[in-house]
């Protein structure tokens, strides 16, 4: 190896090291070992699920949370459970363009998946909740969603005899309260973790796990198509908020955080796990297919507003490249274990 080549290689390795240290978007994949190793680390799945110190996991808490999650009595009508909009059979969403709430009212935003929310840094499409405990009560109390005033929820659950023992096992001495209801639901939600997908096997070294077209799509995903700028890491999101140029009047994050123009029409970057099972797409289901989503990005957004993210610019993808990006996204779907619906207390 001549000296210039060696120096370039060393600089390249240094560059990769710096990217890993700062969790920046990964380098190009070119199937050579250092690049693959950098990507492998960048997309590595975590070893354990995080639980907060003031709401540590226990089997009793998960059981209680699962029971509440599937219990439609948490709604005023008695027919809407958390699981109605976050259906495990539909990758923890509802498959609709926009959610449907109390008295069949169509909501203004799509029901987000719960996959891997244990790692999420902000909840809801506009990020208005910082924790799952904070988030869990929102849809229950919302008049448009489950329409269950919290001051009525607690006595309603207390009146179900079977719940008392479940709460006592989960949170001894704390009783049935909005806090323990929220903590139990949050605990269960944290256990909703994607299983290994073909992509995970491929990035770990199994070359046969995905097609060559999908592998090419992954390279585009990290480079020319710029997807990994925000759809980063093993969850394929950095939880960031951007106006991506989708039409609509919903102000998104600006509705909860005034004073920053770039937050107008900005919504949370969603995970791409199980994405091919979770259409239609975006915060309002306005993009019917993955192909149309890629088209939106290729155009640099369908609507150019002052708030449009500076990261959203025309990509000039060829038709073949667009197909490859979609082929890659389809490798993120995992064959998750079936979920057991609990026997509800009476």
């Amino acid at each position, binding site marked *: 190896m001549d000296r210039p080549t060696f120096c370039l290689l060393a600089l390249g390795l240094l560059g990769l090291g710096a990217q890993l240290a700062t969790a920046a978007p990964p380098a190009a994949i070119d199937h050579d070992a250092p690049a693959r190793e950098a990507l492998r680390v960048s997309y590595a799945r975590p070893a354990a699920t995080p639980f907060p110190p003031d709401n540590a996991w226990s089997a009793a808490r998960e059981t209680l949370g699962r029971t509440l999650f599937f219990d439609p009595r948490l709604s005023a009508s008695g027919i809407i459970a958390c699981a109605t909009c976050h259906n495990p059979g539909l990758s923890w969403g509802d498959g609709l363009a926009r959610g449907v709430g109390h008295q069949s009212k169509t909501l203004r935003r799509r029901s987000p998946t719960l996959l891997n929310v244990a790692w999420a*840094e902000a909840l809801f499409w506009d990020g208005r909740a910082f924790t799952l405990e904070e988030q869990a009560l929102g849809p229950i109390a919302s008049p448009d969603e489950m329409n269950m005033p919290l001051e009525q929820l607690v006595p309603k659950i207390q009146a179900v005899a079977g719940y008392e023992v479940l709460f006592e096992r989960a949170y001894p001495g704390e009783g049935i309260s909005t806090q323990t209801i929220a903590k139990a639901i949050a605990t269960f939600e944290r256990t909703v973790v994607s299983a290994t997908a073909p992509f995970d096997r491929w990035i770990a070294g199994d070359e046969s796990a995905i097609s060559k077209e999908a592998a090419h799509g992954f390279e585009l995903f990290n480079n020319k198509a710029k997807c990994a700028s925000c759809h980063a890491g093993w969850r394929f999101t950095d*939880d960031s908020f951007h106006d991506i140029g989708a039409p609509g009047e919903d102000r998104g*994050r600006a509705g909860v955080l005034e004073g920053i123009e770039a*937050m107008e029409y900005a919504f949370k970057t969603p995970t791409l796990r199980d994405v091919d099972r979770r259409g239609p797409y975006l915060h309002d289901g306005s993009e019917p297919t993955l192909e149309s989503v890629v088209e939106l990005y290729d155009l640099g957004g369908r609507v150019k507003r002052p708030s449009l993210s500076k990261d959203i610019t025309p990509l000039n993808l060829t038709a073949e490249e667009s197909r490859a990006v979609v082929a890659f996204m389809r490798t993120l779907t995992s064959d998750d274990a079936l979920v057991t619906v609990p026997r509800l207390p009476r």
Partner: protein
Amino acid sequence: MRGRSTVALLLLALASPATAEDHVVSQKGKRFDPESVRVRVGDRVLFQNDDETTHNVFSRTQGAAFNVGLQEPGSSSPVTFEKAGPVEVRCAIHPGMKMVIEVAE
């Protein structure tokens, strides 16, 4: 004359930032660095965007809420902390960016 000097010294002491310090927090790789800083009341923190993407710094901590707006790459935003206690700081765009400013008397 002596009285005038005393007044001048007093004014200088009041106006002087001698006890106030500047602290620099870098925003790099979608992280604050460092993620915890101890300052004193009256100190100034310069949030320096060393990333290639736009950032923001805001806090909802009661009595210490602020919002610097949008920060272009390379820009710096000074924030002075006037009240003792912990201040939780985040980036509105990247909520994974979070840190705590511990403000001491």
